[in-house]
Protein backbone atom coordinates (compact mmCIF):
# COMPACT_ATOMS: atom_id res chain seq x y z
CA UNK A 1 0.00 0.00 0.00
CA UNK A 2 1.71 3.14 -1.17
CA UNK A 3 -1.12 5.43 -0.32
CA UNK A 4 -0.88 8.60 1.68
CA UNK A 5 -4.65 8.54 2.17
CA UNK A 6 -4.66 5.32 4.15
CA UNK A 7 -2.80 5.61 7.36
CA UNK A 8 -0.58 2.81 8.52
CA UNK A 9 -1.69 3.26 12.14
CA UNK A 10 -0.58 -0.09 13.46
CA UNK A 11 3.15 0.29 13.35
CA UNK A 12 2.94 3.84 14.73
CA UNK A 13 1.64 2.79 18.13
CA UNK A 14 5.05 2.96 19.74
CA UNK A 15 5.58 6.51 18.56
CA UNK A 16 2.27 7.59 20.12
CA UNK A 17 3.45 6.36 23.49
CA UNK A 18 6.58 8.45 23.20
CA UNK A 19 4.75 11.67 22.30
CA UNK A 20 5.41 14.20 25.07
CA UNK A 21 2.17 16.17 25.07
CA UNK A 22 2.94 18.29 28.15
CA UNK A 23 6.10 19.57 26.51
CA UNK A 24 4.19 20.31 23.31
CA UNK A 25 1.47 22.21 25.20
CA UNK A 26 4.07 24.55 26.61
CA UNK A 27 4.72 25.72 23.03
CA UNK A 28 1.18 27.15 22.74
CA UNK A 29 0.76 30.28 24.90
CA UNK A 30 -3.03 30.44 24.45
CA UNK A 31 -3.67 27.03 25.98
CA UNK A 32 -2.75 28.05 29.51
CA UNK A 33 -5.74 30.28 30.10
CA UNK A 34 -8.83 29.93 32.24
CA UNK A 35 -12.34 30.19 30.76
CA UNK A 36 -15.37 30.70 33.03
CA UNK A 37 -13.26 29.63 35.98
CA UNK A 38 -12.03 26.40 34.37
CA UNK A 39 -8.80 25.51 32.61
CA UNK A 40 -9.46 25.88 28.88
CA UNK A 41 -10.11 22.66 26.96
CA UNK A 42 -9.88 23.55 23.27
CA UNK A 43 -11.58 20.96 21.09
CA UNK A 44 -12.48 23.16 18.12
CA UNK A 45 -9.33 22.47 16.13
CA UNK A 46 -11.18 21.65 12.92
CA UNK A 47 -12.45 25.25 12.90
CA UNK A 48 -9.02 26.69 13.53
CA UNK A 49 -5.87 25.56 15.32
CA UNK A 50 -3.79 27.49 17.81
CA UNK A 51 -0.34 28.83 17.00
CA UNK A 52 2.90 27.74 18.64
CA UNK A 53 5.15 30.53 19.89
CA UNK A 54 7.65 29.90 17.08
CA UNK A 55 5.00 30.96 14.57
CA UNK A 56 4.14 34.14 16.48
CA UNK A 57 7.86 34.92 16.82
CA UNK A 58 8.49 34.37 13.11
CA UNK A 59 5.73 36.82 12.16
CA UNK A 60 6.99 39.43 14.62
CA UNK A 61 10.54 38.94 13.42
CA UNK A 62 9.48 39.37 9.81
CA UNK A 63 7.87 42.74 10.52
CA UNK A 64 10.65 43.87 12.83
CA UNK A 65 13.59 42.87 10.63
CA UNK A 66 12.71 41.83 7.07
CA UNK A 67 9.62 43.73 5.95
CA UNK A 68 9.57 45.19 2.43
CA UNK A 69 7.61 44.57 -0.74
CA UNK A 70 8.77 41.54 -2.68
CA UNK A 71 9.84 40.90 -6.28
CA UNK A 72 10.18 44.65 -6.85
CA UNK A 73 12.83 46.60 -5.02
CA UNK A 74 16.53 46.34 -5.71
CA UNK A 75 17.20 47.33 -2.14
CA UNK A 76 18.45 45.09 0.63
CA UNK A 77 15.22 44.65 2.56
CA UNK A 78 13.19 43.86 -0.54
CA UNK A 79 15.69 41.18 -1.40
CA UNK A 80 15.46 39.75 2.12
CA UNK A 81 11.65 39.79 2.10
CA UNK A 82 11.61 38.09 -1.32
CA UNK A 83 13.97 35.40 -0.05
CA UNK A 84 11.78 34.78 3.00
CA UNK A 85 8.63 34.55 0.90
CA UNK A 86 10.17 32.17 -1.65
CA UNK A 87 11.73 30.09 1.12
CA UNK A 88 8.20 29.64 2.49
CA UNK A 89 7.12 28.39 -0.92
CA UNK A 90 9.93 25.82 -0.85
CA UNK A 91 8.80 24.71 2.60
CA UNK A 92 5.23 24.19 1.37
CA UNK A 93 6.58 22.30 -1.65
CA UNK A 94 8.45 19.92 0.64
CA UNK A 95 5.43 19.69 2.98
CA UNK A 96 3.19 18.46 0.15
CA UNK A 97 6.03 16.61 -1.60
CA UNK A 98 5.40 18.54 -4.80
CA UNK A 99 7.93 18.15 -7.60
CA UNK A 100 8.62 21.86 -8.06
CA UNK A 101 8.25 25.03 -6.01
CA UNK A 102 6.54 26.73 -8.95
CA UNK A 103 3.65 24.31 -8.49
CA UNK A 104 2.80 26.02 -5.18
CA UNK A 105 0.57 29.09 -5.38
CA UNK A 106 -0.04 31.17 -2.28
CA UNK A 107 -3.69 32.07 -1.78
CA UNK A 108 -5.79 33.39 1.12
CA UNK A 109 -7.36 30.07 2.04
CA UNK A 110 -8.60 26.69 0.83
CA UNK A 111 -11.76 28.49 -0.24
CA UNK A 112 -9.82 30.87 -2.47
CA UNK A 113 -7.77 27.98 -3.89
CA UNK A 114 -10.93 26.13 -4.96
CA UNK A 115 -12.45 29.30 -6.40
CA UNK A 116 -9.22 29.89 -8.30
CA UNK A 117 -9.39 26.47 -9.97
CA UNK A 118 -13.12 26.77 -10.67
CA UNK A 119 -12.71 30.20 -12.23
CA UNK A 120 -9.61 29.40 -14.31
CA UNK A 121 -9.36 25.70 -15.15
CA UNK A 122 -13.12 25.33 -14.73
CA UNK A 123 -14.14 28.21 -16.93
CA UNK A 124 -11.92 26.97 -19.75
CA UNK A 125 -12.83 23.29 -19.60
CA UNK A 126 -16.40 23.11 -18.32
CA UNK A 127 -19.03 23.93 -20.93
CA UNK A 128 -22.75 23.58 -21.45
CA UNK A 129 -23.99 20.12 -20.53
CA UNK A 130 -20.70 19.12 -18.90
CA UNK A 131 -20.48 17.82 -15.35
CA UNK A 132 -18.53 18.56 -12.19
CA UNK A 133 -18.43 15.69 -9.70
CA UNK A 134 -18.22 16.22 -5.94
CA UNK A 135 -19.26 14.08 -2.95
CA UNK A 136 -22.12 14.31 -0.46
CA UNK A 137 -19.70 15.13 2.38
CA UNK A 138 -18.17 18.32 1.00
CA UNK A 139 -17.75 21.56 2.93
CA UNK A 140 -19.70 24.47 1.41
CA UNK A 141 -16.39 25.80 0.07
CA UNK A 142 -16.11 22.74 -2.18
CA UNK A 143 -19.73 23.01 -3.30
CA UNK A 144 -20.56 26.65 -3.92
CA UNK A 145 -17.60 27.56 -6.22
CA UNK A 146 -18.65 24.67 -8.49
CA UNK A 147 -22.32 25.67 -8.32
CA UNK A 148 -21.38 29.17 -9.44
CA UNK A 149 -19.38 27.72 -12.33
CA UNK A 150 -22.13 25.29 -13.32
CA UNK A 151 -24.72 28.04 -13.22
CA UNK A 152 -22.64 30.24 -15.47
CA UNK A 153 -21.81 27.46 -17.93
CA UNK A 154 -25.14 25.63 -17.75
CA UNK A 155 -23.23 22.59 -16.55
CA UNK A 156 -24.38 20.05 -14.01
CA UNK A 157 -23.11 19.42 -10.49
CA UNK A 158 -23.18 15.69 -9.72
CA UNK A 159 -22.87 14.34 -6.19
CA UNK A 160 -21.43 10.95 -5.24
CA UNK A 161 -23.37 9.53 -2.26
CA UNK A 162 -22.11 8.36 1.14
CA UNK A 163 -23.22 5.44 3.30
CA UNK A 164 -24.64 5.49 6.85
CA UNK A 165 -21.15 5.44 8.36
CA UNK A 166 -20.31 8.58 6.41
CA UNK A 167 -18.03 6.83 3.90
CA UNK A 168 -17.96 7.60 0.22
CA UNK A 169 -19.54 4.82 -1.87
CA UNK A 170 -16.70 4.39 -4.33
CA UNK A 171 -18.66 2.30 -6.86
CA UNK A 172 -21.28 5.04 -7.08
CA UNK A 173 -18.59 7.63 -7.66
CA UNK A 174 -17.09 5.44 -10.35
CA UNK A 175 -20.48 5.10 -12.04
CA UNK A 176 -20.84 8.89 -12.07
CA UNK A 177 -17.53 9.39 -13.91
CA UNK A 178 -18.73 9.91 -17.45
CA UNK A 179 -17.67 11.43 -20.74
CA UNK A 180 -19.16 14.78 -19.64
CA UNK A 181 -17.29 14.84 -16.32
CA UNK A 182 -14.67 17.58 -16.58
CA UNK A 183 -13.34 17.66 -13.04
CA UNK A 184 -13.72 15.80 -9.75
CA UNK A 185 -13.48 17.81 -6.50
CA UNK A 186 -13.27 15.92 -3.21
CA UNK A 187 -12.38 16.53 0.40
CA UNK A 188 -9.44 14.52 1.68
CA UNK A 189 -10.93 14.50 5.20
CA UNK A 190 -14.52 15.53 5.97
CA UNK A 191 -14.76 18.46 8.39
CA UNK A 192 -18.19 17.39 9.64
CA UNK A 193 -17.66 13.62 9.87
CA UNK A 194 -13.91 13.08 10.06
CA UNK A 195 -14.03 10.54 7.21
CA UNK A 196 -10.73 10.03 5.39
CA UNK A 197 -11.46 9.53 1.71
CA UNK A 198 -9.51 7.05 -0.45
CA UNK A 199 -8.04 9.82 -2.56
CA UNK A 200 -5.61 7.56 -4.40
CA UNK A 201 -8.42 5.24 -5.53
CA UNK A 202 -10.54 8.19 -6.62
CA UNK A 203 -7.65 9.70 -8.57
CA UNK A 204 -6.91 6.36 -10.24
CA UNK A 205 -10.54 5.94 -11.32
CA UNK A 206 -10.82 9.51 -12.59
CA UNK A 207 -7.50 9.38 -14.44
CA UNK A 208 -8.59 6.22 -16.24
CA UNK A 209 -11.04 8.56 -17.93
CA UNK A 210 -8.60 11.47 -18.17
CA UNK A 211 -10.51 13.54 -15.61
CA UNK A 212 -8.46 15.75 -13.30
CA UNK A 213 -9.00 15.69 -9.53
CA UNK A 214 -8.92 18.57 -7.05
CA UNK A 215 -8.45 17.63 -3.40
CA UNK A 216 -9.62 19.89 -0.57
CA UNK A 217 -6.96 19.09 2.01
CA UNK A 218 -7.98 21.62 4.67
CA UNK A 219 -8.80 18.94 7.25
CA UNK A 220 -6.12 16.47 6.15
CA UNK A 221 -2.81 18.32 6.33
CA UNK A 222 -3.02 18.91 10.12
CA UNK A 223 -3.37 15.18 10.73
CA UNK A 224 -1.27 13.24 8.22
CA UNK A 225 1.68 13.43 5.87
CA UNK A 226 0.48 14.27 2.36
CA UNK A 227 2.35 13.37 -0.80
CA UNK A 228 0.71 14.91 -3.86
CA UNK A 229 2.95 12.99 -6.24
CA UNK A 230 1.99 9.65 -4.70
CA UNK A 231 -1.67 10.63 -4.64
CA UNK A 232 -1.20 11.84 -8.23
CA UNK A 233 -3.95 14.43 -7.72
CA UNK A 234 -3.99 17.41 -10.07
CA UNK A 235 -4.79 20.10 -7.49
CA UNK A 236 -4.45 20.10 -3.70
CA UNK A 237 -5.61 22.97 -1.48
CA UNK A 238 -5.11 23.78 2.19
CA UNK A 239 -5.31 26.66 4.68
CA UNK A 240 -2.48 27.75 6.95
CA UNK A 241 -4.68 28.52 9.95
CA UNK A 242 -5.86 24.92 10.30
CA UNK A 243 -2.29 23.68 10.36
CA UNK A 244 -0.97 25.89 13.20
CA UNK A 245 -0.06 28.84 10.96
CA UNK A 246 -1.62 32.30 10.72
CA UNK A 247 -4.99 33.11 9.16
CA UNK A 248 -5.23 34.76 5.76
CA UNK A 249 -2.92 32.46 3.85
CA UNK A 250 -3.14 29.06 2.26
CA UNK A 251 -1.69 27.22 -0.68
CA UNK A 252 -2.80 25.59 -3.88
CA UNK A 253 -0.71 22.85 -5.45
CA UNK A 254 -1.30 22.32 -9.16
CA UNK A 255 0.51 20.15 -11.65
CA UNK A 256 2.83 22.35 -13.70
CA UNK A 257 1.37 21.22 -17.04
CA UNK A 258 -2.11 22.33 -15.93
CA UNK A 259 -1.05 25.59 -14.28
CA UNK A 260 0.88 26.63 -17.40
CA UNK A 261 -2.24 26.27 -19.53
CA UNK A 262 -4.61 28.02 -17.14
CA UNK A 263 -5.58 31.67 -17.56
CA UNK A 264 -4.85 34.05 -14.67
CA UNK A 265 -7.31 34.34 -11.77
CA UNK A 266 -6.98 37.98 -10.76
CA UNK A 267 -5.25 40.80 -12.59
CA UNK A 268 -2.80 43.21 -10.98
CA UNK A 269 0.79 43.76 -10.09
CA UNK A 270 3.29 40.91 -9.85
CA UNK A 271 1.27 38.62 -12.12
CA UNK A 272 2.51 40.31 -15.30
CA UNK A 273 5.67 40.41 -17.39
CA UNK A 274 4.78 43.53 -19.30
CA UNK A 275 1.77 45.78 -19.59
CA UNK A 276 0.74 48.16 -22.32
CA UNK A 277 -2.76 49.42 -22.89
CA UNK A 278 -2.91 47.19 -25.94
CA UNK A 279 -1.58 43.96 -24.51
CA UNK A 280 -0.41 42.42 -21.26
CA UNK A 281 1.98 39.50 -21.08
CA UNK A 282 1.44 37.42 -17.98
CA UNK A 283 4.19 36.34 -15.64
CA UNK A 284 5.09 32.67 -15.43
CA UNK A 285 3.72 30.35 -12.75
CA UNK A 286 3.31 30.62 -9.84
CA UNK A 287 3.42 34.43 -10.05
CA UNK A 288 0.75 34.47 -12.76
CA UNK A 289 -1.73 33.51 -10.02
CA UNK A 290 -0.46 35.85 -7.32
CA UNK A 291 -1.74 39.31 -8.25
CA UNK A 292 -0.96 42.16 -5.87
CA UNK A 293 1.19 42.28 -2.77
CA UNK A 294 0.78 38.90 -1.08
CA UNK A 295 0.59 38.04 2.61
CA UNK A 296 4.36 37.82 3.12
CA UNK A 297 4.22 37.67 6.90
CA UNK A 298 1.60 34.95 6.58
CA UNK A 299 3.87 32.88 4.37
CA UNK A 300 6.69 33.30 6.87
CA UNK A 301 4.36 32.20 9.68
CA UNK A 302 3.17 29.19 7.69
CA UNK A 303 6.75 28.18 7.07
CA UNK A 304 7.47 28.31 10.80
CA UNK A 305 4.36 26.20 11.47
CA UNK A 306 5.39 23.54 8.95
CA UNK A 307 8.92 23.44 10.33
CA UNK A 308 7.44 23.04 13.81
CA UNK A 309 5.31 20.09 12.63
CA UNK A 310 8.36 18.56 10.95
CA UNK A 311 10.23 18.69 14.25
CA UNK A 312 7.38 16.91 16.03
CA UNK A 313 7.04 14.50 13.09
CA UNK A 314 3.77 14.10 11.22
CA UNK A 315 3.81 10.33 11.73
CA UNK A 316 4.14 10.80 15.49
CA UNK A 317 1.36 13.40 15.42
CA UNK A 318 -0.90 11.09 13.38
CA UNK A 319 -0.32 8.19 15.74
CA UNK A 320 -0.93 10.26 18.88
CA UNK A 321 -4.09 11.87 17.47
CA UNK A 322 -5.41 8.52 16.26
CA UNK A 323 -5.05 7.12 19.76
CA UNK A 324 -6.71 10.21 21.27
CA UNK A 325 -9.62 10.11 18.83
CA UNK A 326 -10.06 6.40 19.53
CA UNK A 327 -10.17 7.14 23.26
CA UNK A 328 -12.70 9.95 22.76
CA UNK A 329 -14.84 7.80 20.46
CA UNK A 330 -14.93 5.00 23.02
CA UNK A 331 -15.77 7.28 25.96
CA UNK A 332 -18.34 9.50 24.25
CA UNK A 333 -20.18 6.71 22.41
CA UNK A 334 -20.55 4.86 25.75
CA UNK A 335 -22.63 7.73 27.17
CA UNK A 336 -26.37 7.00 27.24
CA UNK A 337 -28.44 8.97 24.73
CA UNK A 338 -25.41 10.01 22.68
CA UNK A 339 -25.15 9.08 19.01
CA UNK A 340 -22.06 9.57 16.87
CA UNK A 341 -22.54 11.10 13.42
CA UNK A 342 -19.75 9.80 11.21
CA UNK A 343 -18.39 6.37 12.06
CA UNK A 344 -16.17 5.72 9.06
CA UNK A 345 -13.49 3.06 9.40
CA UNK A 346 -10.83 5.61 8.42
CA UNK A 347 -11.21 8.81 10.41
CA UNK A 348 -9.07 11.73 11.47
CA UNK A 349 -9.51 14.49 14.00
CA UNK A 350 -13.29 14.80 14.27
CA UNK A 351 -15.91 13.45 16.68
CA UNK A 352 -19.40 14.65 15.73
CA UNK A 353 -22.32 13.67 17.93
CA UNK A 354 -25.92 14.40 18.86
CA UNK A 355 -27.77 13.87 22.15
CA UNK A 356 -31.35 12.70 22.59
CA UNK A 357 -33.58 15.60 23.58
CA UNK A 358 -30.83 18.23 23.62
CA UNK A 359 -30.03 20.61 20.78
CA UNK A 360 -26.29 20.89 19.94
CA UNK A 361 -26.43 24.64 20.61
CA UNK A 362 -27.40 23.96 24.22
CA UNK A 363 -24.63 21.36 24.50
CA UNK A 364 -22.17 24.01 23.27
CA UNK A 365 -23.28 26.61 25.81
CA UNK A 366 -23.13 24.22 28.75
CA UNK A 367 -19.70 22.89 27.74
CA UNK A 368 -18.48 26.46 27.31
CA UNK A 369 -19.45 27.19 30.90
CA UNK A 370 -17.17 24.28 31.83
CA UNK A 371 -14.34 25.87 29.86
CA UNK A 372 -14.68 23.40 26.97
CA UNK A 373 -14.70 24.80 23.42
CA UNK A 374 -16.43 22.72 20.77
CA UNK A 375 -18.23 23.64 17.57
CA UNK A 376 -21.99 23.29 17.25
CA UNK A 377 -24.10 23.77 14.15
CA UNK A 378 -24.00 22.51 10.59
CA UNK A 379 -20.23 23.00 10.17
CA UNK A 380 -20.70 24.59 6.74
CA UNK A 381 -21.85 21.20 5.51
CA UNK A 382 -25.64 21.43 5.44
CA UNK A 383 -26.04 18.58 2.91
CA UNK A 384 -24.22 16.30 5.36
CA UNK A 385 -26.66 17.26 8.13
CA UNK A 386 -29.54 16.52 5.78
CA UNK A 387 -28.05 13.14 4.86
CA UNK A 388 -28.05 12.14 8.54
CA UNK A 389 -31.42 13.71 9.29
CA UNK A 390 -30.16 16.20 11.88
CA UNK A 391 -30.29 20.02 11.99
CA UNK A 392 -26.88 20.27 13.56
CA UNK A 393 -24.28 18.32 15.50
CA UNK A 394 -21.88 18.97 18.34
CA UNK A 395 -18.33 18.50 17.09
CA UNK A 396 -15.24 17.92 19.16
CA UNK A 397 -12.08 18.01 17.06
CA UNK A 398 -8.70 17.01 18.43
CA UNK A 399 -5.15 18.17 17.97
CA UNK A 400 -1.85 16.71 19.14
CA UNK A 401 -1.88 19.23 22.02
CA UNK A 402 -5.04 17.72 23.49
CA UNK A 403 -4.84 15.12 26.25
CA UNK A 404 -6.85 12.19 27.56
CA UNK A 405 -7.60 14.27 30.65
CA UNK A 406 -9.23 16.85 28.37
CA UNK A 407 -11.34 14.11 26.77
CA UNK A 408 -12.39 13.11 30.29
CA UNK A 409 -13.39 16.76 30.89
CA UNK A 410 -15.48 16.61 27.69
CA UNK A 411 -17.19 13.45 28.93
CA UNK A 412 -17.86 15.14 32.30
CA UNK A 413 -19.25 18.14 30.44
CA UNK A 414 -21.64 15.97 28.43
CA UNK A 415 -22.79 14.36 31.69
CA UNK A 416 -23.42 17.87 33.02
CA UNK A 417 -25.58 18.58 29.96
CA UNK A 418 -27.61 15.51 30.86
CA UNK A 419 -27.97 16.75 34.44
CA UNK A 420 -29.27 20.12 33.27
CA UNK A 421 -31.71 18.65 30.78
CA UNK A 422 -32.68 15.63 32.85
Amino acid sequence: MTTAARLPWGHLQNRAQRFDVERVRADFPILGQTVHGHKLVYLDNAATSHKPKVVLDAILHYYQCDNANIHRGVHYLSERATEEYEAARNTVQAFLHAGRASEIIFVRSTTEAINLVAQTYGRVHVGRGDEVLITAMEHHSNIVPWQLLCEEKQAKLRVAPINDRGELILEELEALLGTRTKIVAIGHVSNALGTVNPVDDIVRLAHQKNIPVLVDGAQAVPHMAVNVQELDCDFYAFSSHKVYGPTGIGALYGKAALLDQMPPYQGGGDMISSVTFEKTVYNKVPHKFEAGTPHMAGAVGLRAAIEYLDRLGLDAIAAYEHELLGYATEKVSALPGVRLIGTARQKAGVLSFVMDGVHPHDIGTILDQEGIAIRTGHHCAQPVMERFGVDATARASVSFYNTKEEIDRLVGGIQKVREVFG
Partner: protein
Amino acid sequence: MADLRDLYQEVILEHSKAPRNYREVKTADRKAEGYNPLCGDRFTVYLQMEGDRIRDIAFQGSGCAISKASASMMTQSLKGKTRSEAKELFERFHEVVTGRARANGDSPDLGKLAVFSGVSEFPTRVKCAVLAWHTFEAALEGKQESVSTEG
Protein backbone atom coordinates in the same frame (compact mmCIF):
# COMPACT_ATOMS: atom_id res chain seq x y z
CA MET B 1 -19.87 35.07 36.38
CA ALA B 2 -22.77 33.87 34.31
CA ASP B 3 -24.56 30.94 35.85
CA LEU B 4 -26.07 28.16 33.76
CA ARG B 5 -29.07 28.03 36.09
CA ASP B 6 -29.89 31.63 35.12
CA LEU B 7 -30.08 30.56 31.50
CA TYR B 8 -31.65 27.13 31.81
CA GLN B 9 -34.34 27.93 34.33
CA GLU B 10 -36.81 25.17 35.19
CA VAL B 11 -39.65 26.95 33.36
CA ILE B 12 -37.54 27.30 30.22
CA LEU B 13 -36.51 23.64 30.22
CA GLU B 14 -40.09 22.59 30.84
CA HIS B 15 -41.40 24.67 27.92
CA SER B 16 -38.63 23.41 25.63
CA LYS B 17 -39.61 19.81 26.33
CA ALA B 18 -43.36 20.38 26.13
CA PRO B 19 -43.91 23.51 24.06
CA ARG B 20 -47.37 25.11 24.26
CA ASN B 21 -49.35 26.07 21.16
CA TYR B 22 -47.11 23.82 19.10
CA ARG B 23 -49.44 23.31 16.15
CA GLU B 24 -50.45 24.62 12.81
CA VAL B 25 -53.32 27.11 12.76
CA LYS B 26 -55.36 25.98 9.76
CA THR B 27 -57.39 29.18 9.75
CA ALA B 28 -54.33 31.43 10.14
CA ASP B 29 -54.56 34.61 8.16
CA ARG B 30 -50.87 35.31 8.55
CA LYS B 31 -47.77 33.22 8.94
CA ALA B 32 -44.02 33.71 8.67
CA GLU B 33 -40.88 31.63 8.77
CA GLY B 34 -37.84 32.46 10.85
CA TYR B 35 -34.40 30.95 10.38
CA ASN B 36 -31.09 31.18 12.16
CA PRO B 37 -28.52 30.04 9.60
CA LEU B 38 -25.79 29.82 12.26
CA CYS B 39 -27.42 27.00 14.19
CA GLY B 40 -30.18 25.83 11.88
CA ASP B 41 -33.09 26.86 14.13
CA ARG B 42 -36.22 27.17 12.03
CA PHE B 43 -39.71 28.17 13.12
CA THR B 44 -43.04 28.97 11.55
CA VAL B 45 -45.35 31.29 13.46
CA TYR B 46 -49.08 31.24 12.67
CA LEU B 47 -51.34 34.15 13.49
CA GLN B 48 -55.04 34.59 13.40
CA MET B 49 -56.15 38.15 13.93
CA GLU B 50 -59.52 39.44 14.95
CA GLY B 51 -59.47 43.06 14.01
CA ASP B 52 -56.53 44.51 15.86
CA ARG B 53 -56.37 41.68 18.35
CA ILE B 54 -54.45 38.37 18.22
CA ARG B 55 -57.12 35.73 18.41
CA ASP B 56 -54.85 32.73 18.00
CA ILE B 57 -51.11 32.27 17.75
CA ALA B 58 -49.14 29.05 17.42
CA PHE B 59 -45.81 27.80 16.10
CA GLN B 60 -43.97 24.81 14.70
CA GLY B 61 -40.33 24.09 13.97
CA SER B 62 -37.08 22.96 15.49
CA GLY B 63 -34.42 24.63 17.52
CA CYS B 64 -32.49 24.75 20.75
CA ALA B 65 -34.07 24.85 24.21
CA ILE B 66 -33.89 28.64 24.44
CA SER B 67 -35.49 29.30 21.04
CA LYS B 68 -38.18 26.69 21.53
CA ALA B 69 -39.10 27.81 25.06
CA SER B 70 -39.10 31.41 23.91
CA ALA B 71 -41.49 30.60 21.07
CA SER B 72 -43.74 28.61 23.40
CA MET B 73 -43.93 31.31 26.08
CA MET B 74 -44.30 34.02 23.47
CA THR B 75 -47.46 32.41 22.10
CA GLN B 76 -48.90 32.25 25.63
CA SER B 77 -48.07 35.89 26.30
CA LEU B 78 -49.37 37.24 23.02
CA LYS B 79 -52.75 35.59 22.77
CA GLY B 80 -55.43 38.22 23.19
CA LYS B 81 -53.02 41.17 22.88
CA THR B 82 -53.59 44.02 20.48
CA ARG B 83 -51.03 44.80 17.80
CA SER B 84 -49.52 47.71 19.76
CA GLU B 85 -49.50 45.77 23.06
CA ALA B 86 -47.69 42.94 21.30
CA LYS B 87 -45.10 45.25 19.82
CA GLU B 88 -44.51 46.91 23.15
CA LEU B 89 -44.06 43.54 24.82
CA PHE B 90 -41.48 42.52 22.20
CA GLU B 91 -39.64 45.76 22.80
CA ARG B 92 -39.49 45.10 26.56
CA PHE B 93 -38.50 41.51 26.02
CA HIS B 94 -35.74 42.58 23.65
CA GLU B 95 -34.42 45.11 26.16
CA VAL B 96 -34.27 42.49 28.86
CA VAL B 97 -32.58 39.70 26.88
CA THR B 98 -29.98 42.11 25.54
CA GLY B 99 -29.32 43.43 29.04
CA ARG B 100 -30.42 47.00 28.30
CA ALA B 101 -33.07 46.78 31.02
CA ARG B 102 -33.49 44.57 34.07
CA ALA B 103 -36.50 42.30 34.26
CA ASN B 104 -37.67 43.57 37.61
CA GLY B 105 -38.61 47.18 38.01
CA ASP B 106 -37.81 48.39 34.51
CA SER B 107 -40.17 45.97 32.82
CA PRO B 108 -43.11 45.32 35.11
CA ASP B 109 -45.26 44.09 32.22
CA LEU B 110 -43.02 41.24 31.24
CA GLY B 111 -44.67 38.71 33.52
CA LYS B 112 -43.47 35.12 33.09
CA LEU B 113 -41.17 36.18 30.27
CA ALA B 114 -38.84 37.63 32.89
CA VAL B 115 -37.27 34.14 33.16
CA PHE B 116 -35.39 34.99 29.97
CA SER B 117 -33.42 37.76 31.67
CA GLY B 118 -30.58 35.26 32.22
CA VAL B 119 -30.02 35.19 28.45
CA SER B 120 -28.39 38.62 28.66
CA GLU B 121 -25.38 36.96 30.34
CA PHE B 122 -24.96 34.76 27.26
CA PRO B 123 -24.59 37.11 24.28
CA THR B 124 -24.27 34.24 21.79
CA ARG B 125 -27.74 33.06 22.77
CA VAL B 126 -29.69 36.32 22.41
CA LYS B 127 -30.54 35.41 18.81
CA CYS B 128 -32.07 32.16 20.00
CA ALA B 129 -34.36 34.02 22.39
CA VAL B 130 -35.59 36.55 19.86
CA LEU B 131 -35.94 34.36 16.75
CA ALA B 132 -39.61 33.50 17.36
CA TRP B 133 -40.37 37.13 18.20
CA HIS B 134 -38.86 38.41 14.97
CA THR B 135 -40.81 35.75 13.13
CA PHE B 136 -44.01 36.84 14.87
CA GLU B 137 -43.31 40.45 13.93
CA ALA B 138 -42.83 39.45 10.28
CA ALA B 139 -46.12 37.56 10.34
CA LEU B 140 -47.87 40.51 11.94
CA GLU B 141 -46.57 42.83 9.26
CA GLY B 142 -47.47 40.36 6.54
CA LYS B 143 -43.93 40.00 5.23
CA GLN B 144 -43.63 37.24 2.67
CA GLU B 145 -39.91 36.58 2.95
CA SER B 146 -38.41 34.31 5.55
CA VAL B 147 -36.77 36.31 8.34
CA SER B 148 -33.21 35.51 9.24
CA THR B 149 -31.16 36.32 12.30
CA GLU B 150 -28.29 37.20 9.96
CA GLY B 151 -28.15 40.19 7.67
